[in-house]
């Protein structure tokens, strides 16, 4: 093949020659175009690559909560489940559960509290003085309460020490595992007022939801607008949705990038590569010193582009898989929640009068374990919980000084736990017979109350 001939080929000449000439010119032009285009495209490819890497990193970074401090009780279905579970457990183990938060939290409180949190004298005196002054006016006030403070309002100033202790308590890692409502209840039990508890929550040091939103806004390009607007608004409750949104957007951008690559860049680079290779076969001698380099470069660029495309495809697939997985998990959790709710309803309908057990909790006041009651004439014998370890009622082992229940009570509890109803129950319809029945006039007037 004579490549040196540069005359335009006529149609009837050796096709190869003509072809080679035409192809040569076309290829030359396209080669230079291709080189320019590739050179222009390379940095953009690199930029895109970087953007995709950063956004995937952002997704990973979004997952980085410090412990569970960003969570709230209400957002997570699994916590709702755990709440239902806890209620069911409470029917059995009221006292133990009613001592929530667990002792780990107590430790945390003890560690963070230096001195006792009993009220200081000065605010107490102030409130006492104000209270006595207000007692006379409080009875007659009908105006808006803020104008004349009621004595039933806690008018103590916010105690800084208590707030700091509460913040330390809330930052304790063991405490951060527990749901927020129990943390609040614990602090209130410790004597903090509502304002102090609110301040402690506001002052939590690692406001991780807002930190996450800031990283997302810094690093991700497309989702940043949405994240920034939703993030600072409510740092706790949108965290889950933020992560899902991020995944969705990244999947979208990944898909878009992949499609873009697939449709435009790769075919071009492939055609370029093909053309170059073809040209190589046609014209070897002249551009031998350039062609291999060019071919290598284009091949390398194409390979790199193909790699990027592959990587983004893989990323997209993994994101989609994660999404599916998450969806499956949510479905499973929903199913479980429904099941547990139905169980809870049936248990509630059949289960013990748990309150009767609730107050019968132990106390650490006296170690009275023996119940020295004699059997009564009617033949009821009292079971001493501490001496008789009834395994059917797990409470017994946990409450050494619980009051002794009558035997028939224990029988009924056992029956209920076997899912049998007691025999003497009757079906009674106690719904109101006449829904629109008016209330009768009173026959007696209420006595005038003497104001003492």
């Amino acid at each position: 093949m004579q490549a040196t001939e540069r005359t335009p080929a006529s149609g009837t000449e050796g096709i190869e020659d003509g072809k080679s000439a035409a192809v040569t010119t076309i290829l030359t032009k396209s080669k230079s175009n291709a080189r320019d285009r590739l050179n222009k495209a390379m940095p953009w490819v690199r930029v895109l690559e970087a953007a995709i890497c950063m956004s995937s990193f952002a997704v990973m970074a979004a997952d980085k909560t410090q412990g569970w401090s960003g969570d709230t009780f209400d957002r997570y279905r699994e916590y709702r489940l755990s709440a239902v579970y806890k209620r069911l457990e409470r029917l059995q183990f009221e006292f133990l559960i009613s001592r929530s938060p667990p002792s780990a939290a107590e430790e945390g409180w003890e560690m963070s509290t230096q001195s006792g949190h009993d009220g200081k004298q000065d605010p107490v005196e102030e409130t006492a003085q104000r209270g006595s002054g207000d007692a006379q006016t409080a009875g007659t006030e009908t105006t808006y309460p803020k104008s004349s403070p009621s004595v039933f309002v806690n008018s103590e100033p916010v105690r800084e020490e208590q707030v700091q202790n509460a913040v330390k308590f809330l930052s304790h890692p063991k405490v951060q595992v527990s749901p927020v409502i129990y943390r609040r209840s614990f602090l209130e039990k410790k004597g903090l007022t509502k304002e102090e508890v609110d301040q402690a929550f506001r002052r939590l040091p690692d406001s991780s939801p807002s930190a996450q939103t800031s990283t997302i806004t810094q690093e991700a390009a497309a989702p940043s607008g949405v994240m920034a607007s939703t993030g600072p608004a409510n740092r706790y409750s949108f965290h889950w949705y933020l992560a899902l949104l991020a995944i969705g957007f990244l999947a979208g951008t990944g898909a878009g990038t992949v499609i873009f690559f697939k449709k435009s860049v790769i075919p071009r680079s492939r055609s370029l590569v093909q053309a170059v290779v073809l040209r190589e076969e046609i014209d070897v001698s002249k551009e031998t010193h350039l062609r291999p380099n060019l071919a290598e470069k284009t091949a390398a660029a194409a390979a790199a582009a193909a790699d990027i495309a592959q990587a983004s495809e893989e990323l997209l697939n993994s994101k989609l898989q994660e999404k599916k997985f998450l969806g499956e998990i949510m479905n499973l959790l929903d199913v479980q929640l429904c099941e547990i709710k139905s169980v809870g309803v049936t248990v509630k309908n059949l289960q013990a009068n748990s309150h009767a057990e609730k107050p019968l909790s132990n106390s650490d006041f006296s170690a009275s374990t023996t119940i020295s009651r004699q059997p009564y004439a009617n033949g009821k014998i009292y079971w001493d919980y501490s001496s008789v370890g009834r395994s059917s009622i797990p409470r017994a082992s946990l409450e050494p000084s619980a009051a002794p229940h009558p035997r028939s009570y224990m029988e009924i509890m056992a029956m209920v736990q076997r899912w049998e109803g007691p025999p003497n129950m009757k079906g009674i319809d106690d719904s109101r017979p006449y829904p629109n029945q008016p209330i009768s006039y009173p026959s007696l007037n209420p006595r005038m109350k003497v104001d003492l």
Partner: protein
Amino acid sequence: MPAFKIPFNGYSVKFSPFNENRLAVATAQNFGILGNGRVHVLSIPPSPGAPIVETAAYDTADAVYDIAWSESHDSLLVAAIADGSVKVYDTNLPPASNPLRSLQEHTREVHAVDYNPSRRDSFLTASWDDSIKLWTVDRPISVRTFKEHAYCVYAAAWNPRHADVFASASGDCTVRVWDVREPGSTMIIPAHDFEVLYTDWNKYDDCILATASVDKSIRVWDVRSFRVPVTVLNGHNYAVRKVKFSPHRGSLMISCSYDMTVCLWDYMVEDALVGRYDHHTEFAVGVDMSVLVEGLLASTGWDELVYVWQHGTDPRAP
């Protein structure tokens, strides 16, 4: 007078504010675990030797945990039912027309009901669904719901002087003071280290309230300095179920406990325990002091008996 035998286990007694001879009793079958319930309206005879007579009884599908008389209508009763409903009964109507109302809003057992003695038109119900609801008799739905407690609310009590203030006792070991004009609780008293089962206001000092708890003690609090109790009364051997202030003497209180005793206390006195009645043979769960007759006490328990006696006398005397 002799004790009145009820078919089920007693849960609560209340004297009528209109009629000094009337008493309402809330009872539950099978200790309130599972079964029916019944509301009894009893008539106390004027002479001590005569027996107590039942004038009305209303059956319910589930246990009745508490009962309250209306302060505006002498024949109306409000009952707290274990299936979450609140039923209003009228003793002037025949049993076939009762209950007058059945209000179903609570999602769990309603444990206590208290009628407003000042406004006379509204009442509160405390439930194990952690909430307290405010109702009026003429409305079919609740007026307000107060949901702040973290655990079951065992009792709610109106302040006798301030018509809009009430206190609630809960299993989350706190007592909250509320004002119906405010959106949330106005005061949180960390009353005990264990569940608080009941709370009641002093009828003569509107800032004093007493709390009864699982930790066997009764604590008296002053809301003006609520960090430290005014006094702690120990003497019961098991959880104290109810504590009520006397409507006749400012510092006198009555309490009933799972140690089967009913005790009288005077918290201003050095030795606070002023009386102890050991007449029940099961948990003493309900107790009340009459407003109209000074010194008249009533109690009921899981031993299916209702006792009415004068303070200082033996309840079991025939």
